[in-house]
């Protein structure tokens, strides 16, 4: 009665057996390498340092302090236990009113108090992952397409496409203008999709951007809004890094932009938010869908049942986020600490000649490793990445996994470690860069020597040959002849 393996897989759905979850990509090799050999300052100092996970651990002390000082907010304490019954039984998909109000207030605050968010439009989901997938279920049918400016978060490939059956067409952004989203690039992507007979339903952007760490300027936002209105397609703004802005320009939510645009059809505008990055609490699984479209809001709310936020968590956060003093202090401290960490890393890299895209937000920076590529191609990028992962033991993320148009860029996360680990990571990168540059300069010296037919001592030659990659030596080289 046992099934053969083939039979077993046939019993499963296409979704369960296809690759659209994206976890078989080389990008996840880095995670596996980290899982198998995790860095620890004392127990495993030569392990892999995780710089591929955008987690914000910089302000845990503030959250911990608040929880300990506010026992009544937790239903598991003497102060709060009388609320336990009501909270434990509460499963209404509207969500606790206090929770929605607190979230709306927090979102307004994060946006610089330029806009008031309506608590009745706050819809829950299980993290931003659940929120992004849900908004797609609401806006598009299987086979439809969304445009996404590249480079983009690799998880979009799974969240937007896997169960929804949608397709993604990237809007290519280039380093020549700091990866800005241009009207021309959007039109280009739209036309490409049309040519392929794809039904474009909308465009989804991340602002602040993952992996770039930049915020969109108002002109670009207005251009986006104008574009979607013209094409009568949706605009989804993933604003989950909104409170990680640590430098000017300030974060501007799409909600603020459309306030001044009378020509905008608000039914096209939708926001995805979460507390996972801004507050560093991904374990709480708080995702928010905020749509200006009533039908979408109603549909998303009914779909909340597939990913409601635990009422215990709602209750705790309702209390925490209503504490104005705490929130103000938290946002200020968080910005300060992110700015400092960002500075330490980017300055440290500058010292060894590595530049990063100028950024003002996010839990990562976008590192330019093009000078270190042996070959200006994606193969060259993956080769460099494997060296960084396996030899330098840093899990950074190669730009190709973000569908970056150009090779040589890497995303490096910096907010998930303590200061000591930062030092270790920086030292490793510095040592690697210098070593690589040495290799390169030795290689070019050797090529120069080869060019001028200079013969050096056999031991030096051997040394030079071993560090050169084989393809560099021409079979007709006098060196080879000399060797034999």
């Amino acid at each position: 009665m046992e099934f053969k393996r083939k039979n077993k897989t046939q019993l499963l759905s296409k979704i369960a057996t296809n690759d659209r979850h994206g976890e078989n990509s080389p990008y996840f090799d880095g995670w596996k390498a980290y899982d198998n050999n995790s860095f620890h300052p004392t127990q495993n100092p030569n392990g892999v340092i995780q710089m591929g996970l955008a987690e914000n651990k910089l302000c845990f002390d503030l959250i911990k302090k608040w929880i300990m000082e506010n026992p009544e907010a937790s239903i598991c304490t003497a102060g709060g236990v009388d609320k336990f019954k009501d909270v434990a039984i509460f499963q209404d998909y509207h969500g606790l009113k206090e929770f929605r109000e607190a979230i709306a207030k927090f979102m307004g605050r994060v946006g610089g108090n330029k806009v008031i968010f309506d608590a009745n439009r706050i819809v829950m989901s299980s993290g931003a992952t659940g929120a992004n997938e849900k908004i797609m279920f609401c806006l598009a049918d299987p086979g439809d397409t969304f445009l996404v400016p590249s480079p983009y978060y690799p998880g979009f490939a799974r969240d937007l496409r896997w169960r929804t059956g949608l397709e993604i067409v990237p809007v290519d952004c280039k380093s020549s203008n700091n990866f800005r989203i241009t009207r021309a690039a959007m039109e280009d992507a739209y036309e490409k999709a049309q040519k392929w007979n794809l039904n474009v339903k909308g465009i989804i952007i991340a602002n602040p951007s993952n992996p770039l760490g930049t915020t969109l300027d108002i002109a670009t936002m207005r251009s986006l809004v104008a574009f979607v209105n013209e094409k009568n397609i949706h605009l989804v703004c993933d604003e989950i890094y909104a409170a990680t802005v640590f430098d000017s320009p300030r974060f501007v939510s799409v909600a603020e932009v459309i306030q001044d645009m009378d020509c905008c059809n608000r039914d096209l505008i939708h926001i995805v938010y979460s507390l996972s990055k801004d507050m560093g609490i991904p374990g709480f699984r708080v995702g928010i869908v905020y749509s200006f479209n009533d039908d979408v809001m109603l549909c998303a709310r009914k779909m909340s049942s597939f990913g409601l936020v635990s009422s215990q968590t709602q209750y705790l956060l309702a209390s925490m986020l209503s504490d104005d003093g705490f929130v103000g202090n938290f946002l200020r401290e968080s910005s300060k600490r992110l700015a400092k960490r960002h500075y330490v890393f980017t300055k440290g890299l500058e010292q060894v000649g590595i530049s990063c895209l100028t950024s003002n937000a996010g839990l990562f920076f976008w590192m330019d490793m093009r000078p270190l590529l042996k070959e200006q191609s994606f193969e060259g990028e993956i080769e460099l990445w494997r060296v960084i992962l396996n030899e330098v033991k840093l899990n950074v993320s190669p730009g190709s996994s973000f569908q970056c148009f150009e090779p040589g860029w890497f995303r490096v996360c910096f907010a998930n470690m303590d200061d000591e680990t930062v030092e270790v990571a920086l030292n490793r990168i510095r040592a690697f860069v210098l070593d690589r540059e040495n290799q390169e300069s030795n290689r070019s010296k050797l090529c120069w020597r080869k060019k001028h037919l200079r013969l050096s001592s056999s031991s030096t030659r051997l040394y030079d040959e071993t560090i050169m990659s084989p393809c560099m030596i021409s079979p007709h080289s006098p060196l080879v002849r000399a060797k034999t």
Partner: protein
Amino acid sequence: MRLIVPLQSVVQGRGGLIFGSLIPCALFYFLQLYLKRHRSPKPQSNPPSPTTSSPKLAEMTRTSSRSNLFSRSIEQVRISSRAISIAKPNESPYYIGLDKASEDPYDRLSNPDGVIQLGLSENRLCFDLIEKWMSENLGHSITGRDNGELNINGIATYQPFDGTMELKLAMAGFMSHIMGGAVTFEPSQMVLTAGATPAIETLCFCLADQGNAFLVPTPYYPGFDRDVKFRTGVELIPVHCRSTDNFALSITALDQAFNQTRKHGTKIRGILLSNPANPVGNLLSREMLYAILDFAREKNIHVISDEIFAGSMYGNEEFVSMAEVLDSEDFDKNRVHIVYGLSKDLSLPGFRVGVIYSFNENVLAAARKLTRFSSVSAPTQRLLVSMLSDARFIEEYIKTNKRRLQNMHALFVAGLKGLNIRCADSSAGLYCWADMSKLISSYSEKGELELWDKLLNVGKINVTPGSACHCIEPGWFRCCFTTLAEEDIPVVLERIRKAVENTTDLLNSS
């Protein structure tokens, strides 16, 4: 359609150019106007059908609004076809009743004229025990056992999306205990989800493609229509059970439904069972479980067994889990998947804890990846590990819960009997399945909905009509009694009496 107007004769005449252009333009314009006014709306791609049989009137209104939409389609923004139907106000009495009861909830002291909620299967009978545990174990519940020190890493950071191993271990122990120790559950075969709702949906995504179907015995839990159909594109095919055999499932009926569906070209991927059954409350016998497994193997399909009420037993019958049957016999385990959750047995629906338990490695591998979309909150996991690991508490809870359930069930059913309303035989659940067919004006769905409406708006009690559960016989209602205190029962009975006081059968009962 375009009328090709022969222009030659017009053009050749005097003022030909003017007429040659004006007349066809005018004709074309009037033709477009005519067509616009009389054109029927284009058929849209099939949205999922509403959860219940809605009155014809609502359908007519819907059609005419669709044609208005079409004529303005150039400006109208397009959302997904599923969103169009889901966004509409819920016409199912199941949801309408729930909304009405939550807007005006009954409270013995503060709102004695409010709507009594008998439509939501929630268990409030043992909260005192849980509260007591909370107050005695505060140190452990959120901070973990590190000497009261809050381990923020354990609750704030990313945890495995399919649940922590500690919670899986604790759940495995709890589930085993709940089912009388007859079966051991392996934590490694468990995937935790944010409630049983996403557990069902996730399994559907794993086991079926869009357009496929699951067989489901009726009457069934109205929420299945949402869980299975909202987003997966999978259909539910009812397998009707009847009161003559106490709504027991028969293999013949399964077989007929299977063949009928296949004839229409739809592929059946599995059977969706709830055991203990919701809304009837009866159990599947061991023999029936064997028969279902044989049927599934013969047709090469899956079995999903939703056992969420396994710990809500009040009868004397023994509950037998699918897992127990599989353990004892040589059945192919790869096609069996069990769903469980803490919403019913432990009264914690707000916390959102569900379980997919499968013997199929491929399903587990896929489900683990899918839990990214619906994971359990980390602080909640921490709290529950403490609670479920307290064996003494769990033992006391299970015993007391059963006793109180038995008591409420007996009182409630006896009370209904006093009104000449009999209930189906049941052994578990938080509800009873009441036969009010003698109280309906016409033996039809219409009659049933009229009674439901009277009970809700005149009697101010919310019960779930059988039609919302796809019951083939009109007049049956699901009444949940676990949100009541003993003192509320006479109030409920009085309200039923008042709502139907013109019905002769009721008056003849006493």
